């Protein structure tokens, strides 16, 4: 019997970030321009499996996706029981920068979704010369909270069930059922309080709108791509963000929600490929 292995490989490594050791799970496939993929709040890098398995992309890009600490197959740090998980702007930037350094990535493209789409704005502002380009999927520079985060972590409500039920509102109705539920399954598997801790960054700590005009898109081009049905990072919020980041390019993806790469990979590809082609032609 021949096994038809998927092309990505997964490995673990220990990352020292901010004086804390994290056991990180990372997948990659392809060769060429580094394309570092950042998953959404409360999920993990499995969201990028279609990108990692697409030869049209991996023929030109070294696609890399890792699980943030506390997520997926990356561990929380030693002693995690002693504190509640809470993602901060500084901690998030540090982890991404340390991963880039550990992997010795040269001129990487960073493609982050949701909170990953927010942090790329912070990274582009602070170190535009290092990054080749940023792709902010479902990434507005400011959001308004609309439910009490305490519902996500309490003993009388199942964390996995409520997380999936909350974010199911952000999947487009016409996305294939198979991928809708795969996307939601990732949310069902999150650790206690982890989605809530990510949303601390996404809703409370990571606002960026006042600094958006300072981003130099000539040094680091920014592409904003948001789904029509995203009720969190709505098309309107994306367009407002684009208006603040001079020179950014914005795409509203019809028929897609908050999870383009995992909820409707085929449709997402039609929007992503022209942008990746453009990025591939940017001089390093």
């Amino acid at each position, binding site marked *: 019997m021949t096994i038809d292995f998927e092309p990505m490989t997964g490995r673990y490594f220990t990352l020292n970030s901010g004086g804390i050791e994290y056991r990180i799970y990372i997948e990659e496939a392809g060769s060429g321009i580094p394309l570092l993929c950042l998953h959404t709040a409360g999920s993990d890098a499995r969201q990028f499996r279609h990108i990692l398995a697409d030869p049209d992309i991996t023929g030109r890009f070294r696609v890399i996706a890792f699980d943030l600490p506390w997520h997926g197959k990356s561990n929380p740090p030693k002693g995690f029981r002693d504190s509640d998980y809470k993602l901060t702007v500084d901690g998030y930037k540090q982890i991404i920068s340390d991963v880039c350094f550990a992997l010795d990535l040269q001129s990487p493209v960073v493609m982050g979704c949701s909170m990953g789409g927010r942090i790329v704005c912070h990274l582009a502002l602070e170190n535009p010369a290092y990054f080749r380009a940023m792709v902010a999927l479902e990434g507005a520079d400011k959001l308004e909270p*609309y439910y009490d985060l305490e519902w996500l972590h309490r003993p009388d409500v199942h964390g996995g069930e*409520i997380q999936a039920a909350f974010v199911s509102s952000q999947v487009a109705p016409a996305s294939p059922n198979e991928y809708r539920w795969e996307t939601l399954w990732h949310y069902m598997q999150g650790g206690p309080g982890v989605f809530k801790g990510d949303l601390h960054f996404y809703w409370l700590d990571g606002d960026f709108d006042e600094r958006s005009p300072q981003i130099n898109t000539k040094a680091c081009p920014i592409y904003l791509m948001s789904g029509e049905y995203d*009720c969190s990072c709505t098309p309107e919020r994306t367009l407002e963000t684009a208006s603040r980041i001079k020179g950014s390019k914005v795409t509203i993806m019809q028929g897609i929600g908050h999870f383009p790469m995992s909820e409707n990979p085929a449709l997402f590809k039609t929007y992503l490929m022209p942008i990746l082609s453009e990025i591939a032609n940017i001089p390093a």
Partner: protein
Amino acid sequence: MIDKMQTRVNADARLVHRGRWVTLTFLLGIGNDDYLIGIVAGKITTIRRRHLATDTGEFSIRASAKSWAKHWQAVPPRDYHDIFAMLPKQIAKIDGRLESLMQNLQYFKDIIAKMRTEEGDTNDH
């Protein structure tokens, strides 16, 4: 009509199973009309129009008739496609004790979405 929610929910064994811990009455507001929806172990046992001021449910979910009509389209437009997309846009409103709703959120979304237009339906919510 709203009665079809009861027929469709009770005919869906998996949905009833997912709601097996739910026994309560909640209020669904469609414009000016309030309906009390009684559930026992995931099955809808009663749907009746509110007729006394003291009639109420554990929690309520309200939206205008036009908004529910959009929510119940076969492919709803954005902002109307899910109750938790309608809430931040202030298209829908929830009140009351929310524990049971949150403990069974996907179940409640799904029983309300059972009113969604299916092949052969007339548009008479």
